[in-house]
């Protein structure tokens, strides 16, 4: 009622004020910038009341703290000044504080008592004050003026609260954007890493992603492969870490925020702020260190998490490449072994030569791809034949190399008319001179005479071949000769010995893979007596079947588990 009376009393001015209010409110509400709102509030009110001093106080966190947000007054506080204004809580709710009523407040503010404070508040928050100095006319503010300014402060307060909320939202949005970007980086790099097999490239991309993402320039990435710790990528280090530095880095906690005083010289000199250990199957195999962030922000949980995630990604990719390489190497080795196997098989006689008047069978079964057993039947220029069987100590590639060596010596000697015992001495010396002292060969060879009736043999430490005379169950052992090949120089000459073959005789040459085959619980060997029994049970068969009977017997004894190479020659005089 009061208002309408006043409007009618001064219609023109009222309309002008209404328009000002309307336009101001629109401008302020639409603005999303609190600074703009405050500045306009101050200028409009100063212009409207024609006061020459004015400022805006904005409340800060803390009970009595305010900052001078805007100041258009010479001699008053400057913009940006922090002040303390002790006000009773009730006064923070008053819309208007007049200088002549609250002199104590204005003394604290350091402004004249003709000034007025207008509360900037929303329904539940006190935001600050608009402080206006005395009018140029020195007249006190009229009720009408007070009411008008109060309306403006209410509109402005709402606008400020809105724009603050808007800014808060914008900040939250930005944080979300940043999170989305972080996730995108992880996702993208996981795809990129998948295509990479070069460890240097992986480490380099990890480095650049960290530099860009964290806004840093100091970075290192150390890796522990096969107990060797090395820096695989770095940027901005003043010095490379020593081996001791690296060892110490791997001893740090998984997440270590560096503290200048307590840390090693390496961390301090390079201004490393954070060191993170990365684990693979619970073992720490990588360490990442990062320097200060250029935006002066620290490393919070979010950054540590991101660093760990990206680090683990890089680490897994590197692990993958290591496994891949291992696999490739393994496959290469397998291929080479297969090739070696083919070569070794070529060193054994195939097909087995036939010798008139004899029924011969032979077999060589390696427990691995390549082995150290050897047998041979070589025709000599005088129409006789050399029979040989040998077992190199050890297994696998080293044994097979020595076996190949022996094979080539025998084939070189075969065309030459040498006596067996002298030749054995020479072979021993060559092997002794050319092989490590822990490599030996047990070796038996014999020369079958041209008329097929006589076998001259030398046994150099080999399991004695068994000669079963026709009708006899106890074999003759062919033991004459000397020490195993390669153990020592030939001090004593090897002795040779001779046997006569008669129709129905059976000669079996074998390696220790036969007699030392183990039963399943590894407590007993096959041994010679089982071999002899088996041979006696199968005497009526041909050589091939006798040999198969022995193999079957060994397999049933050992439950088909073969530990050593097995080699045999079975020969019957027909």
């Amino acid at each position: 009622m009061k208002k309408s009376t006043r409007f009618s009393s001064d219609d023109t001015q009222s309309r002008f004020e209404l328009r000002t209010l309307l336009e101001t409110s629109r401008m302020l509400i639409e603005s999303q910038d609190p600074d703009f709102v405050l500045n306009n509030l101050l200028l409009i009110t100063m212009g409207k009341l024609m006061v020459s001093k004015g400022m805006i106080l904005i409340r800060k966190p803390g009970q009595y703290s305010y900052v001078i947000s805007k100041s258009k007054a010479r001699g008053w506080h400057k913009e940006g000044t922090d002040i303390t204004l002790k006000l009773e809580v009730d006064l923070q709710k008053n819309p208007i504080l007049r200088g002549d009523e609250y002199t104590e407040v204005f003394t604290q503010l350091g402004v004249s008592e003709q000034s007025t404070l207008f509360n900037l508040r929303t329904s539940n928050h006190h935001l600050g004050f608009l402080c206006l100095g005395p009018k140029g006319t020195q007249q006190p503010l009229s009720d009408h003026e007070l009411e008008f300014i109060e309306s403006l402060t209410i509109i402005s307060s709402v606008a400020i609260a809105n724009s603050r909320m808007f800014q808060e939202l914008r900040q939250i949005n930005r944080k979300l954007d940043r999170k989305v970007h972080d996730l995108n980086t992880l996702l993208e790099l996981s795809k990129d890493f998948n295509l990479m097999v070069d460890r240097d490239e992986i480490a380099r991309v990890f480095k650049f992603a960290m530099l860009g993402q964290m806004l840093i320039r100091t970075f290192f990435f150390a890796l522990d492969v096969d107990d060797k710790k090395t820096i695989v990528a770095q940027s901005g280090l003043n010095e490379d870490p020593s081996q001791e530095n690296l060892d110490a880095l791997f001893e740090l906690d998984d997440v270590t925020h560096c503290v200048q005083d307590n840390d090693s010289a390496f961390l301090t000199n390079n201004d490393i702020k954070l060191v993170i250990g990365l684990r693979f199957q619970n073992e720490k195999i990588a360490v990442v260190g990062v320097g200060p962030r250029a935006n002066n922000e620290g490393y919070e949980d979010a950054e540590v998490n991101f660093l760990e995630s990206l680090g683990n990604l890089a680490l897994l990719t590197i692990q993958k490449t290591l496994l891949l390489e291992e696999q490739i190497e393994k496959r290469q080795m397998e291929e080479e072994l297969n090739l070696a196997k083919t070569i070794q098989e070529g060193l054994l006689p195939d097909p087995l030569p036939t010798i008139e008047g004899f029924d011969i069978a032979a077999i060589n079964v390696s427990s691995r791809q390549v082995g150290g057993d050897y047998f041979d039947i070589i025709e000599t220029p005088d129409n006789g034949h050399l029979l040989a069987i040998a077992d190199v100590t050890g297994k696998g590639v080293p044994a097979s190399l020595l076996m190949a060596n022996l094979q080539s010596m025998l084939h070189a000697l075969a065309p030459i008319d040498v006596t067996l015992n002298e030749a054995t001495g020479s072979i021993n010396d060559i092997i002794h001179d050319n092989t490590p002292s822990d490599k030996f060969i047990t070796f038996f060879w014999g020369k079958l005479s041209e008329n097929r009736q006589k076998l001259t043999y030398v046994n150099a430490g080999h399991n004695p071949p068994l000669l079963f005379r026709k009708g006899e169950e106890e074999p003759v052992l062919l033991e004459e000769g000397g020490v195993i090949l390669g153990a020592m120089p030939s001090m004593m000459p090897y002795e040779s010995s001779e046997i006569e073959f008669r129709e129905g005789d059976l000669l079996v040459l074998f390696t220790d893979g036969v007699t030392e085959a183990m039963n399943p619980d590894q407590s007993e060997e096959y041994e010679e007596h089982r071999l002899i029994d088996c041979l006696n049970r199968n005497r009526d068969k041909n050589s091939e079947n006798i040999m198969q009977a022995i193999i079957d017997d060994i397999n049933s004894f050992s439950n088909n588990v073969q530990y050593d190479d097995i080699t045999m020659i079975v020969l019957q005089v027909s």
Partner: protein
Amino acid sequence: MKNFSIAIRQKEGISILDISGELDAHTASQLENSLKSLIDDDKYSIIVNCNGLDYIASAGLGVFMAYIEDVRGLGGDIKLTNMNDRVYNVFDLLGFPTLYDIHDDEHEALESFSND
């Protein structure tokens, strides 16, 4: 090979890198090599014109981080120009505008070099 390319021009004693395409984990090393060779040739005033740049990943930004201090330490600078909004947004999100001199166009960047 991904769609990324770099061309180098010289203008008023300043090296201008025109980069275009996608600067990501795979292509970051190309940018690194270009910056390295400029530094090796004692050319420290560098403008990177991003006019043709469609996309930038964190690894691409990392290359700038790795070299900015070296270049500034030698009395030069790396200034960035002509970014599209999407690319600028990534720079902005990670806080680059406070560290790098970013200009709307190349001319502006050239001028700011002569004012330095």
